[in-house]
């Protein structure tokens, strides 16, 4: 092995990308980030254990209809006499996992498209980015509505629809990162070492591209939670009697005199979406202190 080989071999190792320690240190010093993590942890705990301590059955009447909040029914009861507090607690079992799954596939699809477009450039870039432009040209919820209406209503189809409309953001962000990372020395070195395209993309470029995607995905989990509820609200997501938040808000929409029907599930969405917003904000600060101020 010659000297030159040794040298390129060292250069070949990608510089450490998103340093988990540094992020954690930055998050720990931010009260907002800690609050956000606590809120998400509490909701996760509720979702996992609700069967053990739910005060009432989420699907069966628990008392008189349309009671305002009181000592027995903290969030009141709905038009069928079901306990809204119980139903709200059960709701996290739909919204949170679904939003995480939607975000996972969104990031996966968006990353593959962004990576291929950024790495290969040329006509592949042109075609993939035009496809991205076209998908992004629709207001997302409206296109999602359209996709669900075509696929048929249902909570799984609404998740598929959201993935289908949400990936362009990740694709654009990742492509921009790839364009700058692929010019770096260690990528050149890997090329000189005749590493395969696949290896360069996965080992040398991909680990350095995550900062903006991570920030965006975190904030977007909150937005997707709202979008899932929105589709159910429209009547395209979950079907009654599912205790899904958007569905529950819809049940309260025509009866705004009985304000409490929508209040519980609404507050649930706000707390969870806000937590992901704060967390995304904190990630942004941790990863890019200057832009984090903006």
């Amino acid at each position, binding site marked *: 092995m010659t000297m030159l080989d040794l040298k390129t071999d060292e250069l070949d190792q990608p510089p450490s990308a998103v340093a988990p320690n540094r992020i954690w240190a930055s998050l720990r010093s931010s009260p907002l980030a800690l609050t956000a993590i606590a809120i998400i942890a509490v909701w996760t705990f509720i979702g996992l254990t609700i069967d053990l301590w739910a005060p009432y059955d989420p699907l069966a009447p628990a008392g008189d209809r349309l009671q305002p909040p009181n000592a027995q029914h903290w969030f009141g009861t709905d038009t069928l006499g079901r306990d809204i507090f119980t139903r709200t607690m059960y709701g996290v079992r739909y919204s949170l996992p679904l939003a995480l799954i939607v975000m996972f596939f969104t990031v996966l699809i968006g990353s593959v498209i962004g990576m291929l477009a950024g790495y290969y450039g040329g006509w592949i870039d042109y075609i993939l980015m*035009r*496809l991205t*432009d*076209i*998908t992004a*040209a*629709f*207001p*997302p*919820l*409206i*296109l999602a*509505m*359209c*996709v*669900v*209406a*075509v*696929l*048929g*209503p249902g909570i799984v189809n609404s998740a598929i629809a959201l993935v289908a409309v949400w990936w362009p953001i990740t694709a654009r962000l990742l492509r921009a990162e790839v364009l700058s990372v692929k010019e770096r020395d260690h990528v050149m070195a890997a090329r000189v070492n005749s590493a395969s395209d696949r290896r360069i993309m996965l080992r040398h470029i991909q680990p350095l591209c995550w900062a903006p995607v991570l920030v965006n995905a975190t904030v977007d989990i*909150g*937005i997707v939670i*709202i979008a899932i*509820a*929105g589709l159910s*609200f*429209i*009547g*395209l997501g979950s079907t009654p009697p599912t205790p899904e938040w*958007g569905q529950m*808000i819809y049940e*309260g*929409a025509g009866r*705004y*005199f009985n*304000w409490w029907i*929508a*209040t519980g*599930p*609404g507050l649930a*969405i*706000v707390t969870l*979406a*806000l937590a992901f*917003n*704060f967390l995304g*904000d904190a990630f942004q600060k941790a990863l890019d202190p200057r832009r984090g*101020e*903006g």
Partner: protein
Amino acid sequence: MLRTIAYRLTGIPLIILGLLTITFILTRGIASDPIYGILSIRELMNEDYVALVREKYGLDEPLIVQYFNYLWNTVQGDLGTSFRTRQPILSDLLAKTPATLELIIFSLTIAGVLGVTLGCLAARFEGSVLDVTIRAVSLVGSSVPVFWLAIILLYLGSVVLDWFPGPGRISQRIAPLEDGTGFFLIDALVQGRWDAFQSALRQIMLPSIVLAWSILGTITRLVRASMLDAMESDFITLARAKGVGSWAITLRHALRASLLSTITILAHVFGYLLTGAVLVEAIFAWPGLGDYAIESARALDYPAILGVTLVSGVTFILVNLIADILYTVADPRIRQ
């Protein structure tokens, strides 16, 4: 400058062709046979009749022919017939558009004025309590589902406080307006109907506050960021060195420099407004495109939903195009 604009314009047909292709794939490629939407179960039993209807709607042609027929029809303004209303979709959409535009323009004005003001204040007092508060509120703003806020404000504003009327676009108790532009505020003024103008104004307040709130956070954050960027540029440093006061710098220099990006920001949030309008209209019984979209979606009337999707996509593209052109025209650096 003309070349930049021409370059942007040439991209538009391609994107619109893409939009049409996606909507076509959605209807014919994925959806079940459209015939099930057109005919009732009883009519479906009659095979001759089904064949006749297929021929009438061109559903017996090969898919590729249907695709070109679809493109050709759409270019001519024929978006098909709604299963639900049995009307041509284009005329349905045109009838609903003024209501939505009135709502969107009203809320964009509220959110634009408030958002730019708050963004400037936050940038001017960067790092202060005011800045932190404004940023926190704008984060909270984007975490509140607009359809929930609408219900809560409807309860607070019209039941508890009784400041605003309930849902609807104009009071049922006054004589209806004659046909005009479809923009009730304008029609009322033109027809000299002061009572109708007052009623329409009172009705539009609450839904547009809800819609404005949904984009206020985004506008504030983006305006603040672009102000801070502007504050770091050389000409601001020069102004500071010459002893210009910080308010004068904020308002006369930084704000002017970031007005351009504000145009882009407002075009960008237009998409959110279209989405928000869909949900807000449903709650406020606002007879616009959003209400139409939801009613169509609930009835699985997908030619109608595709029509709304297409129109909102094209509108969104055009709004962004106009913003780009304004940007090009207004920014001397790009103009050269």
